[in-house]
Structure formats: C-alpha cells, structure tokens
C-alpha cells in the first residue's frame, strides 16, 4: 500500500509544468502507480484550468485569431498515433520488473547492471541534460550503508519494499531525502527491492568502513 506521496505543492508545480524536469519524471512515475495522486493531479489540473482559462475579463477574438481559426480548420485529422512500442520491463538475473509508464522510455537507456558492495546492484540511466538516474536493486537482506545526502535524493519504489530503521517503504512510495536525513536502507522483503533513484549530489556515507567510500561516492548513485 502506497503511503508516501509528493507534497501537494510539489504536485501543483508538476501539474503546472514548472517542476524541475528530473523531479517531474519521478513524480510522473509515482502518479502512474498511485491512484490517490492520480485523483490529486486531476483535481489540481481542474483548479489550474479554472485559474488560467476561465477568467472572463476582456478576452475577445481578434482578426489574427480569426485567421488562425480558419487555417486550423483546413488541417486534416491527424493520423492515429500509436504509442510506440517500448520495453515495459527491466530484467535482472532472470527476473522481470514491470516499469511505470513514465520510466519506460528510459528502459532502453539503461546501462547494464553491475554489482556494488554486498547484495546491491546498480544500473545507471542516462537522463540526458538532467544527468543520471539509477535503478538500484537490493537483494533480500541487502542494504545501502548508512548515509546522508548533500543534495536531494528522490526515490521511487518500483517493486518490493525496504526499511530504513524509521519507516517501511512499499511499492509505489515516493521518498524525498535531503541533508537532514541519515538512513540505512535495508531490503526486508523476500523478493528484494527495486527502486529508481535520482540524486543531485553524491551521497555521503556516515559510518564504519563505508566512510572509505566517500572519496569515490561519485561512482555510486551519481
């Protein structure tokens, strides 16, 4: 059951098209998975359409709009656009993971999986100018060493669940972490856990041997 959602204000920015593109992507994928936020998005769209299109003050047709109208009616109906066939899943070790719609386009831009420390797998995703995102798979019992964040870390649980000592996150959950959060994610589900993650600055590992990773943390999750 999805418990964690983007803040209302973040969704408003997303719906109005003003959110950061990478954030928009993660929010869009969450909305694909989340009936609650689908309703939110519908309600916000309606509100924004009222705000932007319903003002009755001094809107009138002028001659250039009239010309435009006639030109448009000369256009033929666009040929049916079929959604291009996209890989809708991600494969790892013989398992297939269904991806939310918004992330499907990036499935083909995902590099191969590589094993990180312990029971962790990582596959970078080229997001163009937005940088890189990562699919991260934690095998059952697998964990990311305790870390904090220099910037923002957006995580969407694609399949399975994980805990971080304070909370348990389920499939579809949207999680925002920043420098005020330190956590140690552990995959508790017997099937492990697949997440999509986007960080704008490298993670900062805070305990034990993992601190040795910090000089190389740009290699991890960034």
């Amino acid at each position, binding site marked *: 059951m999805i418990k964690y959602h983007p803040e209302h204000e973040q969704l408003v920015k997303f719906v109005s*098209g003003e959110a950061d593109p990478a954030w928009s992507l993660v929010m869009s994928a969450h909305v694909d998975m989340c009936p609650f936020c689908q309703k939110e998005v519908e309600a916000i769209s*309606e509100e*924004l359409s009222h705000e932007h299109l319903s003002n009755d003050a001094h809107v009138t047709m002028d001659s250039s709009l009239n010309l435009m109208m006639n030109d448009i009616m000369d256009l033929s109906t666009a040929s049916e*656009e079929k959604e291009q066939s996209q890989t809708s899943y991600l494969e790892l070790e013989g398992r297939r993971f269904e991806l939310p719609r918004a992330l499907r386009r990036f499935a083909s831009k995902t590099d191969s999986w590589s094993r990180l420390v312990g029971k962790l797998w990582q596959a970078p995703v080229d*997001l163009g100018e937005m940088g890189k995102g990562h699919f991260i798979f934690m095998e059952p019992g697998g964990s990311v060493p305790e870390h904090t964040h220099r910037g923002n870390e957006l995580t969407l649980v694609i399949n399975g669940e994980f805990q971080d000592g304070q909370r348990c996150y389920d499939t579809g959950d949207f999680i925002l972490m920043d420098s005020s959060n330190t956590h140690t994610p552990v995959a508790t589900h017997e099937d492990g856990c697949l997440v999509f993650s986007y960080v704008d600055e490298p993670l900062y590992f805070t305990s034990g041997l993992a601190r040795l990773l910090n000089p190389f943390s740009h290699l991890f999750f960034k």
Partner: protein
Amino acid sequence: MLVGMTVTEEQSRVREPKECADEMSEYLRKIAEQRCRVSFSRLFSFFAPRVKSYALRQIGNDALAMELVQDTMANVWQKAHLFNYEKGSPSTWIFTIARNIRFDMLRKQQNRKEDICSEDLWPVLFEQTADPNEADLEEQTTLNQVGEFLDKLPVKQQVVIEAIYVKGKSQQEVADELDIPLGTVKSRTRLALQRLRELLKEND
C-alpha cells in the same frame, strides 16, 4: 430590448461552469464525429483568447504566445476524439494540452527537448487503452453492481480482475502468482473490462 443582437447576447450571458462544460463537450463531440466547423468556431471563440492570455502571462512574447495558441487549438481540432468525457471538463483538457506545449517550447528553447518531453510526463494526447490503474468503472456504478456483473464473467477473467481491482495487485504479480504470461493477464483484463463495460451499458 433590441432584437438581432444574438452575438453580443451570447458573449455577455453569464454561464454556469457546468452548463458551459456541457456545451463545450457537445462541440468537441461534433468536431470529433462530423468535423463540425460551426462547433469548432464556437469552441475556438471561447477558448483561443483565454489560451492566448494564459500564453502571454507565461511567455510574455506575442509571437510565441500565438504559436502556443495555434498548436493547442490545432490539437483540439485534430484530436477531439481523444477527449474523455468522463475524466474531466473540456477546459481542463485544453489547459493540459496548452501546458504540455508550453513545457516543450521551453525545453526546446533550452535545447533540451530530447531529454524529456511533455508526453512522457502527461500523456494527454494518446489513445487510452485499458489500464488497470483506471478506476473509472467504480465511478459509474456501485461496487455491488460490478460484483453482480463480475459473476457473469468467465472464471479465469474473474480471478484476474479480483486480484487487480479488489486486492490491488499489479499485473505482473498476478502473472507470477497464477504462473501465466503477463500478456495473458493483460488480455484477460482487457476482455473482462470490455465485457463489464458492455454489461454496464446494457443495464444503464
């Protein structure tokens, strides 16, 4: 009172939002089904100036604003058949189209169009195929009624529909549990939803 002032009257008449939405929906239907030019000109006269003032506030450049109006209204003319009456008002639909076009225009200006485009984020202008996330059946009728109709489906379809809609499982999970291909789950879902829609229509 003067007669023969229908145009002015039409424009100044204060309309309830619902009434206006119904009227605009009817225009969209006629555009989709008959390429009705009168309907389009009414719809255009109402929305184009509003989209233009939205565009001007957002972009602040007259030429680009007109481009946004042009693209938005051309999509309305060409893709009216994609408007879903059950999912929202014409004004919401047209706003989302304009929002998408504005988003792409800005990305293009930054030469970043390739990273991500509006259709990735908000698929407004695509045929919607049966999607297990869509819960619009629930809104059309009571759950009890659906339960009755559910009994009329082949058992194999019932199992899939229950797992997805009642237990909230993903199609992949259902495929894994029943040990059948994902494609089979999808086609069973689609067939079952089609059948349910027919049953709902018959009993409306």
